[in-house]
């Protein structure tokens, strides 16, 4: 920690800046100055694929120079990225980091697939990052988060193999792990660049043209580094049979899987892990949180009051009655904070993590995930998950 950082993060400075916080002043001098918040300047945007196969979408890698407050990341972690979308609406989504583990303040990359199924493409963070973001723009970040990490390094070689399975843009966190192993091999382990144990890297893409990091993976596969790369395209789905051929005792092998729900479910079946199980085993799973994560069930037309309302913190789910979320929460025995009950005082503002709500005053609907809504004047349409 440099002296400047120590001063900026000091209690004395915070007391002087109270109640607004030091960052509210620093940001006016330079967006790259920060005491606690993390921001990043876009350094480079590289298109990885164009989205050729049916259902595929373009992918881009965005290189970020974070503020000195960035504490670095471990391979496999993700970061929350806040983007100012057109209309001055800042929106935040999670993206896995694709570059090798970073040190504090060090540059890193995220690799993003444009979400073509977003309800409103104008409000899609991933589309913005793929199509619109330009070098020089500022993004808002969290610190790196997540436990989908690699506990081994080339400094700790061993006989146990590592197995990485990914599908589509789910390649990003395992790519970060693979890159970290390869980067660190000459530094901490084998001079020749061998990663110190057998690594099986199995990836499923829609087509060869939609393969992210194709050239780099080909080079990794060709080099003598201990890494086996197996790429599968189109109809070549994951099968337990094939996995057994690659890694006979896969159930006793440390495995990381990341990708679409279908792939993750099939892998879990192969490992005999029941879906949603949290028992830590050899299999580590990273779920993808897409904008349209909740299966809204069969659509029953506009104005439908059917579906289920889930109160996430209370852990209860009730049938949607079509009334306001505040009334439904109270009917479910919850006691959420409220005030005016007419949409003016903001006392009842709560976070909707998924689903569509209709504003009872205006009739407008909104399907954005992780949105703050006034539950006294919001009624769910179909399934809805609310953080109460």
């Amino acid at each position: 920690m440099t002296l400047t950082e120590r001063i900026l993060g000091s209690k004395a400075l915070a007391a002087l800046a109270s109640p607004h916080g030091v960052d509210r002043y620093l940001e006016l001098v330079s967006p790259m100055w920060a005491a606690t918040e993390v921001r990043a300047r876009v350094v480079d945007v590289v298109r990885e694929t164009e989205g050729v196969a049916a259902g595929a979408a373009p992918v881009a890698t965005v290189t970020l120079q974070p503020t000195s407050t960035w504490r670095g990341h471990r391979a496999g972690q993700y970061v929350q990225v806040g983007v100012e979308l057109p209309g001055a609406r800042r929106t935040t989504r999670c993206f896995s980091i694709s570059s090798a583990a970073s040190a504090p303040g060090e540059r890193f990359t995220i690799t993003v697939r444009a979400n073509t199924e977003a309800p409103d493409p104008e409000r899609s963070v991933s589309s913005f990052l793929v199509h619109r973001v330009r070098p020089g723009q500022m993004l808002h970040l969290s610190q790196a988060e997540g436990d989908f990490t690699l506990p081994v390094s080339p400094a700790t070689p061993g006989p146990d193999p590592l197995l990485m399975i990914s599908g589509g843009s789910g390649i990003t966190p395992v790519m970060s792990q693979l890159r970290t192993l390869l980067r660190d091999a000459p530094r901490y382990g084998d001079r020749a660049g061998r990663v110190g144990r057998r690594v099986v890297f199995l990836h499923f893409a829609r087509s060869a043209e939609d393969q992210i990091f194709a050239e780099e993976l080909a080079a990794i596969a060709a080099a003598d580094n201990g890494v086996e790369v197996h790429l599968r395209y189109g109809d070549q789905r994951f099968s337990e049979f094939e996995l057994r051929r690659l890694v006979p005792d896969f159930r006793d092998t440390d495995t990381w899987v990341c990708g679409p729900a279908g792939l993750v479910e099939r892998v879990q079946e192969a490992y005999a892990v029941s879906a949603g199980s949290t028992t830590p085993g050899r299999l580590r799973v990273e779920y993808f949180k897409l904008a349209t994560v909740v299966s809204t069930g069969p659509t029953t037309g506009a104005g439908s009051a059917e579906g289920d309302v889930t109160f996430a913190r209370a852990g209860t789910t009730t049938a949607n009655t079509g009334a306001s979320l505040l009334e439904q929460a109270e009917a479910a025995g919850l006691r959420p904070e409220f005030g005016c009950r007419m949409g003016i005082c903001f006392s009842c503002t709560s976070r909707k993590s998924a689903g569509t709500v209709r504003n009872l005053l205006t009739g407008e609907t909104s399907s954005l995930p992780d949105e703050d809504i006034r539950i006294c004047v919001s009624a769910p349409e179909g399934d809805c998950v609310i953080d109460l």
Partner: protein
Amino acid sequence: MGSTSSTAPRLSPDQLEEFGREMDALRQRIIADLGEEDAAYIRNVVKRQRQFEVAGRVLFYVPPAWPLAVASLSIAKILDNMEIGHNVMHGQYDWMGDPGLNSRMFDWDTVCPGEQWKYSHNYIHHTFTNILGKDRDIGYGVLRMDEDQKWRPYYLGNPIYAFLLMVFFEWGVALHDLEVENIVAGKRKLADNRPLYPGLLRKIRRQALKDYLLFPALTGPLFLSTLAGNAVANLIRNIWAFNIIFCGHFPAGVETFSEEECYDEHGQESRGHWYYRQILGSANISGGRLFHLMSGNLSHQIEHHLFPDLPARRYPQIAPEVREICARYGLEYNTGRLSKQLGSVARKIFRLALPPRRSTPEAAPAGEVAAAA
């Protein structure tokens, strides 16, 4: 109307519904139009506020510039409390998704914790505006500001209490949430206040530490001069905020309401009547752009009470339309220069210090309504 001097027309349920629809449509039109301009505006105000604040703090190092330092810091505090703090904490900019401008995260540069103020202001005052017995902002539990507040000898001190409230306004706002008058009346238990103390004390400590110890100490030998400067800046902000805010609901002609006339047998009030009550219960102050900025656009109290969650910069923009709608329904749109509204409030403070004159109860208020019209 609670006030015996009421001249406001009563609207039929159908008229109220149509009136409410017009207001809803106006609101919806602005909501759909919110975007980059509003964001740029509030960010620019924040930037200017920070510049005035930093300039004020720095100028205390230059003794001859003391008045300038005080002026700069006063402007910073006024902007922080009014155009930024009050409006941001109303949720006017929540749609931006910017944590620095979010109603749930923002706190302002006064001893009152934003968290506690939002309850008594956004919920109680804005929902029950000018309903006697429900809106605690009628006299703030200290003053007699309405004819229908029963006179007691205590109210002989009305002008003195008002003066003290003006000088110590930020403290008054902070202590408002403790509802002392309800404790005295036996409607609230002292224990109900216990959860409020830690937040209140923390905020007071932080504000006092910054203004009365740390910044003065940083100027070394000028400690006392900086301390005095900070105190004066707080005082100027108090006086300004008090005067603007008292013109919002207390000038002559502003109506108060009884619970019976607002709620039906199910305890419900129609949206149209709520809008109707907001208009008749508020008063504007006319002035230029700079005046509206420095008053946090509370000079458009009527528009603010109709649409408390719309960015305040929109109030001057929609005011002509609101006025036109009011005229069509025959509703008085109470506005006037600062001097006129303040004079009217001052007369009320003095007049209501005395018990009602039994012989001519309507003489004084009726005269003022005519003057305000």
